[in-house]
């Protein structure tokens, strides 16, 4: 209370210095008028049949400590009348009080038909019902048009099986005998990792999950991909897979499926190069946020890179990269420096794609 009184007094002093009575608060106006009328606070209180405290709270604008606004407005009017203040000034003071302190009454607006529908006829139930209907329609739409697993998702399902050694990141839908070899398991080609500093990001979902869940591996020690996201994404991408990541009973096992898709390629050379897979190394000279999504839109890296750290990934391009504090990162793609300076903006956030192949 004392602090509030001091603040009021300071405001009042400033206003008096400025010699502008309109800048005075309503409490200060009342106090000055009372002093001009030569009335003491106790005398004013006696005239209005209120306690001294009410007058004090009015003059120091401590309206929270007074009864409901209707009473305060009444006190203000009576006090102003006692001090022979002009009616216009009194009403101005009451308006000022209403604007500043009292709650405004709700505007009386003619209800539209929509408002009637929403507010009155259906009461509180309309919004939950509408939400449920919209959600149901969305789910139905997804199921009909977007929810059917396509061949790439079938391939993902196959890759999710732990026993399978399907190629991570490879898109089997686009494979042909001459283009790709789905049975090839690429070996990690990332450079040797420095413990705790340099990490190799697995590309395939099964491997990525394995790393994120395997705290024993050096690469998985401090890199913690979003497990919930990973599980969600798996669930989304593999609607037929059960909770254990196993394909449904009717589906083929990974190896069988691959053989059924490309029977002639099962025995292909494991060392063959896979187009689209790229080694990307991020070298951090400053702390920087990094997020990378692969060609399938899966988030394969989302973490904070600390100054001096290096992160490597081996993933299917094109890769969508987002960097915060982008000037603090250098990128090597397949050992060559990747220039992303043209994607830098003022806010140091950079969004760009690393293409599947270097332009000739």
């Amino acid at each position, binding site marked *: 209370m004392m602090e509030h009184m001091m603040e009021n007094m300071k405001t009042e002093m400033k206003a008096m210095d400025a010699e502008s009575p309109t800048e005075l608060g309503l409490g200060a106006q009342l106090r000055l008028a009372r002093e001009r009328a030569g009335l003491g606070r106790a005398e004013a209180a006696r005239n209005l049949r209120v306690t001294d405290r009410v007058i004090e709270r009015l003059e120091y604008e401590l309206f929270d400590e007074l*009864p*409901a606004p*209707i*009473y305060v407005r009444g006190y203000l009017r009576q006090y102003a009348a006692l001090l022979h203040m002009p009616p216009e000034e009194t009403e101005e003071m009451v308006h000022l009080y209403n604007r500043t302190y009292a709650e405004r009454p709700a505007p*009386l607006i003619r209800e539209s038909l929509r408002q009637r529908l929403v507010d009155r006829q259906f009461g509180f139930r309309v919004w939950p019902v509408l939400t449920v209907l919209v959600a149901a329609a969305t789910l139905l739409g997804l199921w009909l048009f977007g929810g059917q697993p396509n061949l790439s998702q079938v391939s993902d399902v196959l890759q999710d099986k732990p026993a399978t050694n399907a190629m991570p990141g490879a898109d089997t839908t686009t494979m042909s005998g001459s283009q790709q070899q789905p049975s090839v398991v690429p070996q990690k080609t990332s450079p040797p990792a420095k413990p705790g500093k340099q990490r190799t990001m697995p590309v395939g979902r099964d491997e990525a999950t394995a790393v994120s869940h395997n705290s024993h591996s050096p690469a998985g020690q401090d890199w913690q991909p979003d497990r919930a996201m990973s599980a969600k994404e798996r669930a989304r991408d593999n609607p037929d897979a059960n909770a254990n990541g196993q394909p449904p009973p009717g589906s083929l096992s990974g190896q069988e499926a691959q053989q059924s898709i490309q029977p002639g390629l099962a025995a292909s050379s494991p060392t063959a190069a896979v187009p689209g897979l790229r080694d990307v190394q991020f070298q951090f000279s400053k702390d920087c946020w990094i997020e990378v999504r692969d060609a399938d839109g899966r988030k394969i890296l989302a973490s904070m890179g600390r100054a001096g750290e290096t992160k490597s990934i081996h993933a299917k391009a094109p890769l969508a990269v987002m960097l915060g504090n982008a000037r603090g990162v250098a990128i090597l793609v397949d050992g060559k420096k990747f220039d992303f300076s043209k994607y830098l903006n003022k806010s140091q956030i950079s969004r760009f794609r690393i293409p599947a192949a270097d332009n000739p």
Partner: protein
Amino acid sequence: MATISLTGFFSNDLSIDLGTANTLVYARGRGIVLNEPSVVAVREDPRRGKIIEAVGVKAKAMLGRTPANITASRPLRDGVIADFTTAGKMIQYFIRKVHNNRYLRPRPRVVVCVPHGSNPVERRAIREATEAAGARRVFLIEEPMAAAIGAGLPVSEARGSMVLDVGGGTSEVAILSLNGIVYANSVKLGGDRFDEAIISYVRRNYSTLIGESTAERIKKEIGCAFPSDELLEVEVRGSNVAEGVPRSFSLNSNEILEALDEPLKSIVRLVRTALEQTPPELGADVAESGILLTGGGSLLRGLDKLIIEETGLPVIRAEDPLTCVARGGGRVLEMIDEQGIDVFTLEE
């Protein structure tokens, strides 16, 4: 049932302050949509029987100026229905006027504000008249509660609030706390009695007869309840009893103060009794915050000062005191929808 729901959908819920002097209607979402005198003029037709000639403002203009076949009267006396049929027609007229829909018969939910002192028979009469007028659901709320809500008193708090509602036919005082009435009392005395007191005074002192309308005009122009520095005067014309011809004379505010002495004393007695009956904790709250005046009678000059002098408590006149009750009823409708019907003790 489905028809009722459909027509109800196209009707605005209403709050009706069915007053002795004026009827106010508050439509939800639109505010006060009707404020007309509670007067109905009925024409006696030899072939068709009784026909409603005019309601509201037009009917009031006919008061005391009607030929033999037209009767302009107030269907409410002392806050309750005195003429059931006419009151029902009046309510029906007001509801139709508010909705102004030629194709659908309005079926609104209606909150009707009734005097605290009204008995079950009177309340039933009001309910049936409202239902007959087309309401699909009728709630009755006591006027002091509606007035307090409309004026903005914190009735839901655990804090005593006192309201004095001086209406046309009744004056009611109530102490409210936690959405309920702790104490209430009512006297059948209000603005009408003030008018009658002025008529009696003029007849007694000037041997002149004046009508209700003239008495009301005098009350509004120079009526006061407490002596003031300013002496107001008004020119009055009436029928001299001794000479049998119209005469004009002037009345001043001090004379009216003398004329209103008796009804004002009754109101002060009502307030004092309420304060005596109030539990001490609530009495302390009232002593701190004061008494709120609502109703058209509270517009009488100096009434607040009179009660301040007589009780020693702060007295505050509500903003727009004429519409407090109707606005309060409207707010009750909103609160019923927001918080359920149990929020107040309402009669259905």
